[in-house]
């Protein structure tokens, strides 16, 4: 790989041991990819968490040991230097303000707190969400990023027109102190052209459920390709719909970029989505494909008695929290069920100030932030059957926690929490 003089100096240790280890990692990684050079970045979204299982064992040796092992892949313990880019902490394993609701051990909560203080002081903004783009970490068109979190990566590329690959904990750790990431993959304009045409041949309303189902099928169909979605789209998709579409497509497959002509910025029309390469043969998304997605997402579910309802993966906007509040109006969560609603740390604050937290608690639910059941591996005690409005959560939660999981609309999920039973379905 070709390095600039500044990069060579970091590799030689001119900026200290952390920059040396970071540059060593970026060179090993760049060579593994077959990248020719690095590119400058000023925006990193990663994780510096010290409270996850296994990582905790390292935290006993201090936060620098956590940083060295997990953020730089360094056997040598080096001091954590100040971050040199905008650095955003993604979703973590517990709710800082409400660890008790999740049954988090006080030692773990204290460790998380210590980690947030250590890395916060070094310049990591403790947003604690999978959706940085909802809380002010909004990339600019064409900007080079080094982001983790598959649902955020696909949003940043497709909806913002920024350029990032799906980075990992170690590469983002190195990027935040060196301001560098391999120039490869989606950083290169030619690699951002559509690879698959998806013709939507059912009426697709501007509804989360429908965009989640479409995303889940598209990910399975194109794997890590770049789909271009056209057809019977009714109503312009909003942040919420595109958030769910991308998260689903990045779960069933490895979609990191897509185009919706006329909606996403790199595709004013269908032709530009393929960058003049000509559209390939269309994949058809019809009633049978929609049915497949629905059944695949409900494939783990057998028992209709629902113990736990999870809403907010990726983290809910305030508007989505309000939708839950409205669906709950005049009703109470069944004693045999639980309802947890998740939002980013910053937006949970807004939802509380707007009275939504109080309304959810008054109905017997909880408004939580900073984490989700798949990341924390925490579900209410004794949970065997879950319901969720998230294709991503329905994909991962059964594998991670061994529960059964129903997938459906927000209203079907709230109904399950209130009645304790799943009555959901799609037409």
């Amino acid at each position, binding site marked *: 790989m070709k390095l600039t003089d500044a990069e060579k100096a970091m590799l030689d240790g001119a900026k200290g041991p952390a920059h040396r280890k970071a540059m060593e990692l970026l060179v090993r990684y760049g060579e593994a990819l077959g990248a020719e050079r690095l590119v400058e970045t000023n925006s990193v979204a990663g994780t510096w968490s010290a409270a996850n299982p296994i990582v905790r064992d390292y935290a006993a040796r201090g936060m620098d040991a956590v940083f060295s092992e997990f953020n730089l892949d360094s056997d040598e313990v080096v001091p954590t230097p100040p971050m040199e880019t905008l650095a955003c902490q993604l979703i973590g394993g517990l709710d800082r303000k409400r660890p008790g609701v999740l049954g988090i051990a006080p030692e773990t909560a204290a460790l998380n707190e210590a980690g947030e203080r250590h890395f916060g002081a070094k310049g990591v903004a403790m947003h604690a969400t999978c959706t940085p783009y909802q809380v002010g970490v909004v990339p600019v068109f064409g900007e080079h990023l080094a982001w*983790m979190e598959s649902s955020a990566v696909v949003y940043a590329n497709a909806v913002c027109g920024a350029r990032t690959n799906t980075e990992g904990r*170690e590469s983002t750790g190195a990027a935040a102190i060196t301001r560098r990431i391999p120039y490869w993959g989606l950083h290169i304009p030619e690699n951002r052209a559509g690879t698959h045409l998806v013709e939507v041949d059912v009426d697709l309303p501007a509804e989360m459920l429908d965009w989640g189902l479409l995303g889940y099928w598209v990910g399975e169909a194109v794997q890590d390709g770049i789909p271009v979605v056209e057809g019977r789209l009714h109503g312009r998709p909003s942040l919420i719909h595109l958030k769910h579409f991308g998260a689903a497509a990045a779960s069933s497959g*490895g979609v990191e970029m897509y185009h919706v002509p006329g909606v996403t910025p790199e595709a004013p029309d269908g032709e530009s989505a393929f960058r003049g390469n000509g559209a390939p043969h269309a994949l058809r998304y019809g009633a049978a494909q929609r049915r497949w997605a629905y059944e695949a997402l409900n*494939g783990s579910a057998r028992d209709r008695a629902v113990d736990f309802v999870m809403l907010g993966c990726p983290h809910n906007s305030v508007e989505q929290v309000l939708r839950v509040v409205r669906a709950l109006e005049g009703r109470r969560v069944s004693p045999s069920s639980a309802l947890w609603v998740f939002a980013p740390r910053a937006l949970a604050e807004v939802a509380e100030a707007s009275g939504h937290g109080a309304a959810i608690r008054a109905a017997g639910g909880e408004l939580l932030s900073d984490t989700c059941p798949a990341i924390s591996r925490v579900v209410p005690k004794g949970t065997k059957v879950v319901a969720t409005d998230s294709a991503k959560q329905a994909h991962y939660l059964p594998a991670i926690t061994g529960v059964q999981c129903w997938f459906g609309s927000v209203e079907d999920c709230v109904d399950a929490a209130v009645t304790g039973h799943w009555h959901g379905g799609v037409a």
Partner: protein
Amino acid sequence: MIVLHGRRVTPGRAEGEALVTRDTISGWGGMDPRQGTIIERRHELAGQSFAGKVLVFPGAKGSSAWSHYFHLARLAGQAPRALLFNRISTKVALGAVVLRVPAMTELDRDPLEVIETGDHVVVDADAGRVEVTKAR
């Protein structure tokens, strides 16, 4: 013995028994780093261990914690011995780097066609060479 040639992803030489899958692999949410097993519900290898095996697979998918989870597997002593795959991605490249095992891609024959689970495989990434001895 069958010989394949390809590109080195990460350096080194290792040998062992092959574990082959036609399904792409997830890190976070797809495997258990402490047990070294695949846990994804609809995966061909669900419940099977990759620890100490030469893992032969199409590529990576899913969460960006791919490298972190294989990193955790290495620290838990559950790393595969080597990786052979078809589709390069940031997930699998960084995963191979932090696993610190030899890895190769761009092989001149599809490893999923040539190699079967149980075959003995030598991965010499530095020489860009893979040797396969069929189990049957």
